[in-house]
């Protein structure tokens, strides 16, 4: 007589628990990678370094899609224009109302209007007046 194959309920529970475990682990890793502080720090430094390397009359675009998504969720779409600011020789990236990270640049240039679009930010580097 042939034995009929059966799926044990324990095995199903075991597999489901393992999947839940892996999902939690992956979500944790992804959430830490896209943390507010980390994004603010890395983008403020990147923008400051690009400004340092730029010659006057340079127009550059930097993709900050992940930071824009975080800002939309945590600060609202109305505040997207405020996420990248340059004051004097200091770049500030701010993704929530209470957070923000600044990094200075040494290049004596003037920064024109900063435009935040769907996926990134346009920055205009001009000669000092």
């Amino acid at each position: 007589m042939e034995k009929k194959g059966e799926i044990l309920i324990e095995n199903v529970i075991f597999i489901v628990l393992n999947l839940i475990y892996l999902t939690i682990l992956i979500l944790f890793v992804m959430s830490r990678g896209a943390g507010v502080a980390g994004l603010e720090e890395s983008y403020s430094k990147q923008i400051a370094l690009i400004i340092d390397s730029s010659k006057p009359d340079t127009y550059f675009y930097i993709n900050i899609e992940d930071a824009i998504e975080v800002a939309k969720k945590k600060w609202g779409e109305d505040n997207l224009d405020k996420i990248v600011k340059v004051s004097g020789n200091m770049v500030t990236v701010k993704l929530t109302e209470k957070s923000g990270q600044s990094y200075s640049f040494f290049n004596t240039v003037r920064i024109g209007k900063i435009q935040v679009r769907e996926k990134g930010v346009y920055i205009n580097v001009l000669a000092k007046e």
Partner: protein
Amino acid sequence: MSWLKSKKASHVLSVYWFVILILVAIGIYAMISTYYSYPTDVRQWEANVLANKAMDCVSKNGVLVEGLKSGKEFEKDFQENFDERCGFNFADNNYDKTQYYVNIDFYEVSSLDKIVFNVYGGNPSWGGTYNEVQQEKTFERIVQGTKKRFYVVDSERNQYLAEVVSVVRKSEQNVKL
């Protein structure tokens, strides 16, 4: 009975399996938390950009720029207004002291042991710290820098070797102290 025994054994194995999973999770959590608690150190790139800017400021297409040397004499005015002439603004509201240092020594190619002219900007004490980093591999967390050399000629085709040292401190923002 043997069926019961194997089922019990598999339950015990499952418990051990989940203990291992929890230990792996704790390990991954610890590694990721440690990794993201450290800031990104960009000072080496910053020092490179600073050195390149300084080189562009004193030489154009391998020739000393106008205003750096007139006749046989190097211009003191260039030395005194180096930051302004090169477009450097080393002020930073996050720090009391200047966090940058850039120095260019010019040597005559015929006698490389004697500096004929020197210009610098920023805080010279970081230059000393950087020298110690180079010699003893200590204080690496305090400053990061770069050293570059290039040849340049003046309008009378006299050759010079220029050595640029650029140093960035900003350790509070770039390393975990």
